[in-house]
């Protein structure tokens, strides 16, 4: 078991996570779905270390990381808005995290070129993020997150702001890259296409709780309650 989230409770005043539990094996691709405001992103950001839980545990490869500083977790995050550093080139963005771990600049260059090739952005390395399309920016953000070989990759609606064709291409690229880097993924989405294309496990959230987990076909064919049935039927 690479990730174990156990009875996680987070109190953000106007919103609470109530006893979220989730497990992932190495290489799992878990997609979290649920209505807006159900707490999907809060789960990701708590695992990343941005929020401190009031109860519960997060273990990564058996190590308790619940209160570990963000930078010590080896967990990367990709946002819908990419959050690429605008003052750095694409190369510098991708190399940023790697430079912290690897002093040898030729290895850094080699690793950046490798991930850039996998994600089809080799021709963009000298460009600034604001000159790229949304799809290109998202590929850069994914490259930056993956190149550091995180134990866990968190993706918060990474394809939401993109057109259908770009989303399809990105799903294929992400699938390939994640497999190549042997990374476990937690992916939050509203798009059921992400579930069918990428997930081997799905978690459905409602009001700060996980109401059902299972393989995609289980969730869609055997919903546990009316809420899940309505939700997976109503998209």
């Amino acid at each position, binding site marked *: 078991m690479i990730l174990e989230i156990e009875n996680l409770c987070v109190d953000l005043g106007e919103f609470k996570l109530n006893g979220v539990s989730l497990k992932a094996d190495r290489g799992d691709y878990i997609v979290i779905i649920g209505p807006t405001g159900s707490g999907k992103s809060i789960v990701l950001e708590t695992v*990343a*270390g*941005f929020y401190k839980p009031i109860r519960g545990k997060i273990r990564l490869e058996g190590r308790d990381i619940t209160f570990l*500083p*963000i*930078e010590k*977790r*080896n*967990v*990367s*995050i990709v*946002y819908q*808005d990419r*959050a690429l*550093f*605008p*003052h750095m080139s694409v190369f510098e963005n991708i190399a*940023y*995290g790697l430079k*912290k*771990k690897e002093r040898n600049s030729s290895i850094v260059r080699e690793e950046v070129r490798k991930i850039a090739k996998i994600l089809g952005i080799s021709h963009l390395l000298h460009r600034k993020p604001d000159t790229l399309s949304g799809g290109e920016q998202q590929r850069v953000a994914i490259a*930056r*997150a993956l190149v*550091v070989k995180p134990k866990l990759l968190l993706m918060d609606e990474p394809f939401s702001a993109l057109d259908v064709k770009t989303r399809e291409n990105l799903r294929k690229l992400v699938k390939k890259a994640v497999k190549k880097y042997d990374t476990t993924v937690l992916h939050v989405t509203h798009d059921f296409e992400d579930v069918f294309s990428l997930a081997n496990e799905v978690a459905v959230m409602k009001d700060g709780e996980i109401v059902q987990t299972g393989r995609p076909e289980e969730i869609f064919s055997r919903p546990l309650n009316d809420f899940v049935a309505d939700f997976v039927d109503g998209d």
Partner: protein
Amino acid sequence: MGYAMARFHFPGKSVIKSLMDLPIAFPELVLRLCLLLLFGQTPVGKAMEEAGIRVVFTKLGIVVAQIFTALPYAARILYSTFESVNPRYELVSRSLGYGEFESFKNVTIPLARNGLFASTVITFARSMGAFGAVLILAGGSYMNTETLPITLYLNISYGNIGMAITSGIVLVVLAFLAILVFEKVEGGL
């Protein structure tokens, strides 16, 4: 201070923010009088004097007066600047292995550089033009605690209009140069 106000939430934040802004809205003469009393008659002033730090009617008084005049403006610009930088950049930087200070240095500072520079120019311009505070706290004595606005004031008092106008022109030229450099650097950033 501006960064802390923009990034962290803590009890009494709005009170501290108001205190920071107070010198901007406070009647200038009252504020200067407070400074004179603080560094002269209060236990703070007496303790500093016993420690060999004399502020009232000294050159150090000029620096203190200029800090109190310019700091609220600098803090307000820095607060707005840091608030406009999406905190997500720092969080992403930290998730990539960098500590809080490294993320601040590598990501936030470069993204805030326009605001940092603007605050430097405004602080410089405000300090250079500070008159009331410097006069009250440092005394405005000829060739001792004399800044450009005080030179202008003293020369008007002596009836030396030529020197007063010259001081005024130097002040205007310096202000113009500060804004010009700001425009140039901002355009190049």
